[in-house]
C-alpha cells in the first residue's frame, strides 16, 4: 500500500474526508455519551449551541482560540525551519512573567505606550527562552526536542518559585498569584462585559505578518530553505546558523506574545495554571494548518470550537467533562488524516 498524490483533487475529494472526520468525531462522542447515560442525539445541537449558539459562546470560542493562534504560529514558524520547538508552553509563561513584572507598576506609562512596550518585552522574553536551546542545537548539536521539552518543566517550576516568592501578590492572602496588572497595562475588551479582548486582533495581525514574512521576505525564504535542506542552503550562501537563531527568536517571540495576551487581555494576573497546555496544543494547531500561518487561524478556531462546544455539551448532557478532550483529540487525529486523504489516494502496490 502506498500513498499517491492526487494532481488536481476534485471538490468532492477536498470536502468529503474532512466532513467525514467531523461526523466521525460526533459519532464517537455520541457513543461515549450514551455509555455515560447521556442522550446521544442531543449531542450535535448542544455542541453547536455551546460553541456558537450565542454572542457569549462565540466570543468565548474566539477567546479560547486567541492563545492557540499565537502558539500555533510559534510552532509553525519553527517547524517550517525544522526547529522542533516543543517548548512554546514555557515561552508563553516567559512572556507572561515579563508582562507581570513590567505591568504592575515598574513602568508608569500611559496605555498606548505601555501596551506595545509590554508586548515587545514579552516577545523578547519568549525569544530569549528559545534562544538557549537554539544555541545548544547550533553550537553543540543538542537535540532541541528534548531541551525545549525539559525547559517546560524547569520554567514552570521557576514560575512557581516566583509566585511563591518575589512575584507573590502581597495582597493575595498567600495564594501563589502575582499582583494584578495596572489598568494601563490591560488590553481592552472588544465587547463590554464579555471576555474577548484585543489580544485576538493582535493574534490575527500576527498571523498576517507571519504570512507576509513567509511569502514575501528573504527571511521567510531562508527559513524554508534551511528547513527543507540545510546543506544546500549552507552551500548557496544562506547563513544557516543565523537563520535558525532568527527563527528561534521569532518563534519564541510569538509564544511570548501568547503569554502577554493571556495576562494583559484575559487574566490580569499570573497564576501557575495560566495555560492549560496551550503550548502543546499549538503544535497540533500548527500541523493541522500544514504550518501555514493563515491556516493556523482557522485551525485554532476549529480546535477552540470543538473544545468549547464539547465542554459545554458535556455539562448540558450531564456526562463527564472529559468528553470534551476526547472529542478534541479525535477531531484532531481524524482531521489530519482527512487532510491527507483529500490530497493523496491510497494505492495497493
Amino acid at each position, binding site marked *: 500500500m502506498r500513498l499517491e498524490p492526487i494532481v488536481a483533487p476534485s471538490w468532492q475529494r477536498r470536502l468529503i474526508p474532512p466532513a467525514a472526520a467531523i461526523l466521525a468525531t460526533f459519532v464517537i462522542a455520541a457513543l461515549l455519551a450514551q455509555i*455515560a447515560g447521556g442522550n446521544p442525539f442531543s449531542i450535535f445541537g448542544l455542541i453547536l449551541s455551546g460553541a456558537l449558539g450565542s454572542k457569549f459562546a462565540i466570543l468565548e470560542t474566539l477567546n479560547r482560540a486567541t492563545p492557540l493562534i499565537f502558539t500555533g504560529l510559534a510552532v509553525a514558524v519553527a517547524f517550517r525551519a525544522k526547529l522542533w520547538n516543543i517548548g512554546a508552553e514555557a515561552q508563553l509563561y516567559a512572556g507572561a512573567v515579563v508582562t507581570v513584572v513590567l505591568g504592575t507598576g515598574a513602568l508608569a506609562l500611559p496605555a498606548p505606550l505601555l501596551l506595545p512596550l509590554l508586548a515587545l518585552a514579552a516577545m523578547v522574553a519568549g525569544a530569549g527562552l528559545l534562544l538557549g536551546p537554539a544555541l*545548544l542545537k547550533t553550537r*553543540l548539536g543538542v537535540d532541541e526536542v528534548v531541551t525545549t521539552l*525539559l525547559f517546560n518543566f524547569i520554567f514552570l517550576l521557576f514560575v512557581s518559585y516566583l509566585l511563591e516568592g518575589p512575584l507573590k501578590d502581597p495582597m493575595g492572602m498567600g495564594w501563589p498569584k502575582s499582583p494584578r496588572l495596572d489598568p494601563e497595562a490591560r488590553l481592552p475588551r472588544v465587547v463590554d462585559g464579555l471576555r474577548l479582548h484585543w489580544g485576538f486582533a493582535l493574534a490575527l495581525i500576527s498571523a498576517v505578518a507571519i504570512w507576509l514574512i513567509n511569502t514575501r521576505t528573504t527571511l521567510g525564504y531562508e527559513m524554508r530553505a534551511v528547513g527543507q535542506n540545510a546543506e544546500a542552503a549552507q552551500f548557496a550562501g544562506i547563513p544557516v546558523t543565523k537563520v535558525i537563531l532568527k527563527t528561534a527568536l521569532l518563534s519564541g517571540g510569538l509564544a511570548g506574545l501568547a503569554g502577554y495576551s493571556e495576562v494583559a487581555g484575559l487574566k490580569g494576573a499570573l497564576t501557575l495554571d495560566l495555560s492549560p497546555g496551550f503550548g502543546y496544543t499549538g503544535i497540533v494547531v500548527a500541523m493541522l494548518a500544514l504550518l501555514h500561518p493563515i491556516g493556523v487561524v482557522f485551525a485554532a478556531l476549529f480546535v477552540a470550537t470543538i473544545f468549547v462546544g464539547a465542554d459545554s455539551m458535556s455539562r448540558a448532557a450531564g456526562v463527564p467533562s*472529559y468528553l*470534551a478532550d476526547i472529542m*478534541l483529540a479525535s477531531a*484532531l*487525529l481524524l482531521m489530519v488524516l482527512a487532510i491527507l486523504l483529500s490530497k493523496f489516494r491510497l494505492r495497493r502496490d
Partner: protein
Amino acid sequence: MDILDILLSASFWAAAIRIASPLIFATLGELICERAGVLNLGIEGIMVAGAFSGWIAVWAGLPLWGGVAVAMLTGMAFGLLHATLSVPFGLSQHVVGIGLTLLATSLTFYTYRVVLPEVSSPPKIEAFQPYEIPLLADLPLIGPALFSQTPLTYAAFLLAAICAYTLYRTPVGLAVRAAGENPSAVAAQGLSVTAIRMGAVITGSGFMAVGGAFLTLSAFDSFFFDMVNGRGWICIALVVFGAWRPGKAVLGAILFAAFDALQIRLQQTGIGALVPYQLFLMLPYILSILALVVMSRRAEVPAALMVPFNKGER
C-alpha cells in the same frame, strides 16, 4: 545527613531503583519506537492508560500479572492507533503523538468516571510487594538496594536485557535498527518497512503502558488522575540521553531517579530550609540537560527518525 551519607545508604539506592523502574519500562518502549524511526509522543497518554487499565483489571479481580498484561494490551492498542496513523499514512509524528496523549488521557479519565462515578477516594488493590531474592538480598549495600524490590522492578531490568539482546543479536532487532536508519535499505532487502515500524511502535507502546501500570500496581496501589505527572516526557529525554542504547538508557533512568531521590532527601537537610523547594524539583531536569550537552556530541541519532517512508515516493 549530608550528601555523602545519603549517597552511601542502601535505602537511597533502593529508592532510586524504585523510582527508575517505571521510567525504564517506558524509556525502553520509546527507544524501540525511535530505533524503528518513529518518535512516539503518545508516551505520556499511553502511560496514563496503562496505569488505569492495569489497576482497574486487578480491581475487577484479575491477578496482578493479569493487570500487567491488560496494561500491556491497552498500550498496544493505542500503539496500533499511533502506528497506523504515523507509519502507512505517514502523518506528522508530532501531531499523532500529542493527539494520542490527549486521547488516551481523556479516554482514561472518562472511563474512570463512568466506571467509578460515586467514589471520592479511589479503591485500593493488593499491590506487588517487595520480594527479597534469596542470597543476593543479603549482600551488603546492593542487596537491599537492588534485590529487595518488587517483581515488576526485576521485570524492568529483565526487559532491558531482552531489549538489548533482541536489538543487537537477533534478525528482528537488526531489521528494527535498519528501519530507523534507512528504510529504503530495509525495503530493498524484501522486508516490509511498514510492518517493522508498526510492530516496533505497538510493542514499544505496550512497554510504555507497563511503565504506567508500575505506578498503580507496584509503586502505589490505586489510580489517580494526573499521577503519571510528566514521567512520559522524561522518558523521551532519557532515550536521547541514553544515545538510543538500552543499557545507557537504563543507566540514564537510574541516574535521573537518583537525582530525584536525592532532591527529596536534600529538602530535609540544612540547605533544604534555605533553598526554595522548586529548585530541588528542577534539579533532575537541569542535570538532564547538562548531561545531554556532554553526551550529545557522540550520540548517533537514528538517521531516519521522524522521516516517514512512502515507497515509490520521489
